[in-house]
């Protein structure tokens, strides 16, 4: 596929017109440097202004434009049209999420879950401001940096069949962010997060399908975060039982 035109099949959901989602087909111009989001923008600007979708930065950092492209969760701003050999290219809303309109999904569930793991630095006791910052060595930063790159695009949720089967599952990005703060040397909030992490719908729901890691556009590797979280939770529990004095650190 180089310069020319390409067929795009776009998922539509307009509850005031039809109770069920359906597809609309569009014929759009394409070139080697066009991404799927450009094609959607072309449709909105020149063919059908009623098409609804989210986007913002166009450079893979805002995490708004995640959609299913040919059945795979992708950031449409980073997905080039030239990748696809067969037509039409099928664009649908992120799977496993309720659809509000066309390609726009309801993020409420994700945002509520994110809040439950308290993804911020928790201190038992704050030190006075005049004592300065909480310093970290480069090694301490390295421990959690990878997991801090999450842009909340929800592609990992959409790749996770466990979340698809059980909407109560805490989900990859949320656990990865909880793990990120647990690994932070400045943080003292592990105990506050464990209540959400180590229950049935938390880390133990994960069956390590691993697709969250494959689709992650920022190489966060949520699957690794979840498994390491399992290992550290299990080790702590075991140590508390086996070790003298409850294995306190």
């Amino acid at each position, binding site marked *: 596929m180089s310069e020319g035109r390409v067929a795009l099949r776009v998922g539509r*959901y307009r*509850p005031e017109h039809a109770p*069920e*989602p359906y597809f609309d087909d569009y014929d759009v111009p394409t070139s080697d440097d066009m991404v799927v989001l450009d094609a959607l923008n072309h449709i909105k600007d020149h063919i059908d202004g009623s098409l609804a979708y989210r986007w913002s930065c166009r450079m893979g950092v805002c995490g708004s434009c995640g959609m299913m492209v040919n*059945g*795979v969760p992708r950031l449409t701003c980073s997905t080039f049209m030239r990748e696809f050999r067969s037509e039409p290219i099928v664009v649908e809303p992120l*799977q*496993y999420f*309720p*659809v*509000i309109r066309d390609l726009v999904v*309801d993020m*409420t*569930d994700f945002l*509520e*879950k994110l809040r439950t793991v308290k993804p911020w630095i928790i201190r038992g006791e704050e030190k006075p401001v005049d004592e300065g910052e909480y310093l970290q060595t480069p*090694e301490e930063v390295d421990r959690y940096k990878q997991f801090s790159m999450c842009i909340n695009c929800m592609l990992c949720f959409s790749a996770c*069949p466990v979340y*698809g*089967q059980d*909407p*109560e599952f805490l989900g990859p990005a949320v656990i990865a962010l909880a793990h990120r703060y647990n690994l932070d040397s400045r943080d003292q909030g592990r105990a506050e997060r464990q209540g959400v992490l180590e229950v049935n719908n938390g880390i133990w729901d994960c*069956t*390590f*399908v*691993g*697709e969250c*890691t*494959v689709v992650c556009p920022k190489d966060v*590797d949520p*699957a*690794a975060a979840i*498994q*390491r979280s399992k*290992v550290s939770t299990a080790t702590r529990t075991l140590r508390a039982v086996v070790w003298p004095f409850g294995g306190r650190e």
Partner: protein
Amino acid sequence: MRTEAPRRYPVYVPKVPRDWWLRTAPYRRFAAREFTAVFAAVFSVILLLFLSALSQGKDAYEGFLRWLRLPAVVALSSIILLAMLYHAGTWFRLTAHIQVIRVGKNDVPRGAVVAALLGIWIVVSVIVAYLYVWF
């Protein structure tokens, strides 16, 4: 969590098809990994039967060995071997994601972890084969 509060707008909640695990190649690979665990369980049962025969004396033990040599059982064992190799392979790959090994200030690369696991596996297999053939 999804259905707790009434929504201010209508939404369409898609149904997940029952055969979701057959729909994409990665999901099929995951299903294969999980399914091959059944063969690991079957092998464990055979091993327990073997130990039980061993504990019952010479006749039971030799009877069990004859059963193992039946063509159907050899065929089953071959299938179990292939399934276990696949299953073990997938877990070697996944372990590299789970276990971070630090040497000094750097993490050991994933490829090296997988290679080390494979190396240990081969060494142990060779030792077992040696013991089996020579003793």
